[in-house]
């Protein structure tokens, strides 16, 4: 579980996060949503520790990250997996080597066991064996996302962060990636936090949704509650299209 308490963050006097508090539960898909510039990416980067917060607490199962020294943060990060918007696979390594990389860095196991674990992770994300030896540039965007998920789960993380996991993917592949993240979260009991704009994802896998508006938490609930919310900003954001307006009226 990750607890965020009264977090503030400013950049050159611009107050981006204002007293944000939220709880991200283990074993469910937590989502941070909000308009561009609302502060959701800053919130996620602050939780991971890529931004130092001005005030507040960010507790990883009781361990307060802002109190930690860099070396302690580095050790904590070995419990974290992250799926980046652009996958961030290492160009110089093959698909299999990308997944083996965190194992080689931090796992005390033998080369054979690492290889076995990497293959298991790649198979778990439904990647065909013939792609294992290819370079990241030789596979599709959807496959790159799967490899990135496999790499993120290679060290059996307690916490999984996904930044815009569906960015640049077609709707069908997006759905597959969403379901994969959802399954993995439940299967391995991970605290997953997804930063997303994609309303399909929100409706599909949003078990705990935090809506950020102008740097403040404006609403928290799940993908069922969202149909019955009075918050105008949230309704304007989620039900912006005619299709979603119809979906909302059907659900109400």
């Amino acid at each position: 579980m990750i607890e965020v308490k009264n977090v503030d963050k400013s950049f050159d006097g611009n107050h981006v996060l204002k007293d944000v508090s939220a709880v991200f539960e283990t074993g469910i898909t937590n989502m941070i949503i909000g308009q561009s510039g609302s502060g959701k990416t800053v919130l996620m980067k602050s939780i991971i520790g890529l931004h130092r917060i001005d005030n507040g607490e960010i507790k990883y199962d009781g361990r307060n990250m802002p109190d930690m020294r860099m070396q302690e943060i580095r050790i904590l990060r070995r419990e974290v997996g992250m799926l980046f918007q652009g996958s961030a696979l290492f160009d110089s390594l093959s698909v299999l080597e990308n997944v083996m990389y965190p194992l080689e860095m931090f796992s005390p196991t033998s080369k054979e066991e690492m290889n076995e674990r990497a293959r298991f992770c790649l198979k778990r994300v439904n990647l065909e064996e013939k792609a294992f030896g290819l370079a990241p540039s030789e596979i599709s965007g959807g496959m790159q996302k799967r490899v990135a998920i496999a790499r993120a789960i290679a060290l059996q993380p307690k916490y999984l962060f996904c930044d815009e996991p569906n960015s640049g993917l077609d709707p069908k592949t997006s759905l597959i990636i969403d379901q994969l993240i959802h399954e993995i979260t439940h299967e391995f009991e991970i605290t997953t936090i997804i930063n997303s704009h994609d309303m399909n994802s929100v409706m599909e896998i949003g078990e705990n949704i935090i809506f950020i508006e102008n740097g403040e938490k404006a609403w928290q609930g799940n993908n069922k509650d969202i149909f019955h919310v009075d918050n105008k900003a949230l309704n304007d954001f989620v039900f912006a299209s005619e299709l979603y307006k119809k979906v909302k009226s059907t659900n109400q």
Partner: protein
Amino acid sequence: MNLFREIGKYFLLMKRVFVSPDRTKMFFRQFPKELEKLGLQSLPIVAIISVFIGFIMTMQTKLNTSNPLLPVYTTGLVTRDTLLLEFSSTILCLILAGKVGSNIASEIGTMRITEQIDALEIMGVNSANYLILPKIIAFVTMMPFLVIFSMALGIGGGYFVGVLTNILTTGDYLIGIQYAFIPYYVIYSLIKSMIFAFIISSVAAYYGYYSYGGALDVGKSSTNAVVNGSILILFFNILITKLMLN
């Protein structure tokens, strides 16, 4: 103020670079790759430039020292000392600042803008140490070999063009390159080149590591790495020469 901030950031980055690697095994896996990429792949350009500079150095010296009062070995001596003292260390490093410096800055810069460095940090890897240390150590290690290679080819090139064009005899040239030879010049040149290698690789890594934005910004980082690396080489050339030859 901005200059002091940049210098401070550079030293803070170096502090992160020069620590014991997270996994020594991974360092020794990267190290030979960097030796090959930064050192061995520089051999063709070093060879071509050194041979041609040797050619031209001998021809120019011979053409401009036609006074019969000057000893016959002048051409060989001038070619040797120019190559040993300046060309094979300073000028060669200025050329390599372009080749190797832009290579390092663009590689690390691209990793930065494609979030690969963030991915390393999130994994708990000291990205500065993992990416930069093997490059600096490899390039500093390879530089003396490149310098000796350049000296040998430059002097050989001078001999080749001198004898081939009949402007001097083998004997004159061989006497010249041996006359009043000071072995310390070679040591001075090697030490100087290793310092320059450190400057080239660390400055380029600094600009690459702090790249942001897109492809255009990586290009700018690469240019900054080459320009500032070259200026620093020229500045340190004066400093080292003053310290080691005075």
